[in-house]
């Protein structure tokens, strides 16, 4: 497949995967950012949880692709001990 093919192929789907720490897991990064926001004077930002977003180009949004992405999240992108994930198509 050439680069042009990829660009014009409208069938592919970009899925967004949100990874974040589970509730109760300490997030020192988020806490540090929240403290910095407070120092900057933003008193309304009460807490920050810091996570990651992956944009993954999938071949299509068929049930098989959805199943595969779910598995990718469980096996690779998230560590189930500390993290949770959410997929948005």
């Amino acid at each position: 497949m050439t680069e042009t093919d990829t660009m014009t192929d409208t069938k592919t789907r970009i899925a967004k995967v949100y990874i974040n720490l589970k509730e109760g897991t300490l997030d020192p990064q988020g806490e540090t950012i929240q403290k910095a926001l407070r120092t900057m004077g933003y008193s309304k930002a009460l807490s920050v949880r810091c996570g990651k977003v992956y944009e993954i180009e999938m071949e299509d949004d068929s049930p098989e692709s959805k199943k595969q992405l779910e598995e990718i999240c469980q096996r690779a992108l998230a560590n189930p001990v500390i993290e949770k994930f959410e997929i948005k198509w």
Partner: protein
Amino acid sequence: MKFGIVTFPGSNCDHDAYTVAKDVLGEQAEYIWHVTTDLESFDCIILPGGFSYGDYLRPGAIANFSPIMKAVREYSDRGGLILGVCNGFQILLESGLLPGALVRNKKMRFLGRSVYLRIEDNSTAFTNRYKHHQIINLPIAHGDGDYYNFSQNIQTLEKSGQVIFRYCTRDGELSPSANPNGSIGSIAGIVNRAGNVLGMMPHPERAAEALLGSADGLALFESIQAHIGNHKLRKTAS
């Protein structure tokens, strides 16, 4: 005996481990590239520290998918000794060979300094040359070393005596100030249920010669040597 030291792209303590095994202990040692799948000839596998695959995704996560890890899991199932130090510990947790996870240090900083540790169990294959509750001094060098697990899993670890090293003061007291990264229960190192897999954040291989400031890590390698020696003796006798 023969040590196998796994080299992943980004490992950087493999040479330290090799030097201790080969030059300090006088045993055989060999580097094992991460695509190898045959571990038959080794008596102990070391997963060294470093930044395998640049710590991309999560520390240890990508290394867990490299070809050698299937062989490492089988090696563990057969009861083979596996030592994971620092990034090696992170890989063991990612692979599920040890329970739990290591998250960002509580105070966010990368910590490179020496710490005091208390030996919680000196009956393991890795600690039989230490005294019970002996205090030792080893270096740490990590950004993600805060040991975390669900509270019921921590209870299980504690009950079954799987916590082997704890961060402590010079006098062996546990306190938040002596716990550099915020680990639950001041945990610095754990073994699996069967006792053949040890993961630890501090670096015994960087403290196995007095010239390097501490030789307190040497007894860990001597413990492995003694354990394998005894094992082979028993095999010959039977």
